[in-house]
């Protein structure tokens, strides 16, 4: 079970509406697709690469301990057509992310969307454009 710590703003547990990943590079079985968790943190690394884009985010956990969340997104083409570019994020950016968390409680998940410090939202969905 995922332990919700102070760095986790809100744990919205939502029923999922048919959001099976259409291009499963792996099974995605490690993600709990029935849960959405919102996490705030600072970008450590933004990897714009295939098969999937990755974001590492440092989150302040309880007792001040930093947690590095590894967030897996989608193929670059899918993100590009949702408004992302290779420069969308850079280390040090403060962001809020919504993810399907890891089932085993390790820090990470499947990225659903990112809200930048200026309020701009970048989606990470498999929906056809």
């Amino acid at each position, binding site marked *: 079970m995922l332990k919700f710590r102070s760095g986790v703003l809100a744990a919205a547990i939502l029923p999922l509406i*048919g959001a*099976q990943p*259409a*291009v*499963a*590079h*792996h*099974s995605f*079985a*490690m993600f709990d697709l029935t849960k959405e968790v919102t996490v705030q943190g600072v970008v450590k690394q933004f*990897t714009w*690469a*295939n*098969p999937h884009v*990755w974001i590492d985010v440092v989150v302040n956990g309880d007792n001040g301990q930093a947690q590095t969340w*590894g967030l*897996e997104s989608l*193929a*670059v*083409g*899918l993100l*590009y*057509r949702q408004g992302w570019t290779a420069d969308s994020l850079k280390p040090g950016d403060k962001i809020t992310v919504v993810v399907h968390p*890891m089932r085993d409680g*390790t820090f*990470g998940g499947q990225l659903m969307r990112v809200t930048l410090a200026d309020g701009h939202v970048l989606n990470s969905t*498999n*929906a*056809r*454009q």
Partner: protein
Amino acid sequence: MIRHSHLHWAAALAVAFFAAPSTAQNSGEQHPSLSGTWLQKTPGAQTFNGFELTPAGEAAFERNKKGIAASDPDIDTALRCEPQGVPRMLSPGPLPFVVMQTPTVIGVVSEAFAQPRLIWFGNEHRKGYWPTYMGDSVAHWDGNVLAIDTVNFVPTTFLDMRGLPHSDALHVSERMQLLDGGKTLQDQVTIDDPKYFKKPFTLTHQYARRDDIKIVETVCLNTRTHP
């Protein structure tokens, strides 16, 4: 190794596409052009249904399902960026692909894994060719339908994302045609593999014309996986 094979494919595709088709076997005949950018219509990745596995096929399917659940790249070889191959690449979900048709060859470049496929006009499979991810595709026009015949596959690819297996006896027959005045591309895919399946079975894909999309380069490097 993987990257080299991508380059070779890309080079072959470029040579095929830009070579002057002076010996076009279909010259003088009018055929539909399947060229364009296409996006799969049916939501989600389609999986095959209505198949009857042989005992050998059942064992292979169980092995594949376990390998997928364990994210084992020796079973699910796409995990280490090996091409998904035919027919799995025919169900790319939300990732579009480009078809470029010349009188001698049809090239397909998919944004999923940047998989290039070549479908050669003609009736004979090449001799001495080795098993490949895309197999050896030959095609002819049956009226307005492009009939594609593909054999000679590596046995490690999956038929679909669920891990449905095939043997080295796999034979894929496709009937590809335009519908809706060219707005839809349909591909009826029939799988025949007597080692793993008791009888042939069919799945039909439809793709919407999306010439407004420019696909992006998608080299699969598998930079990382979850721990």
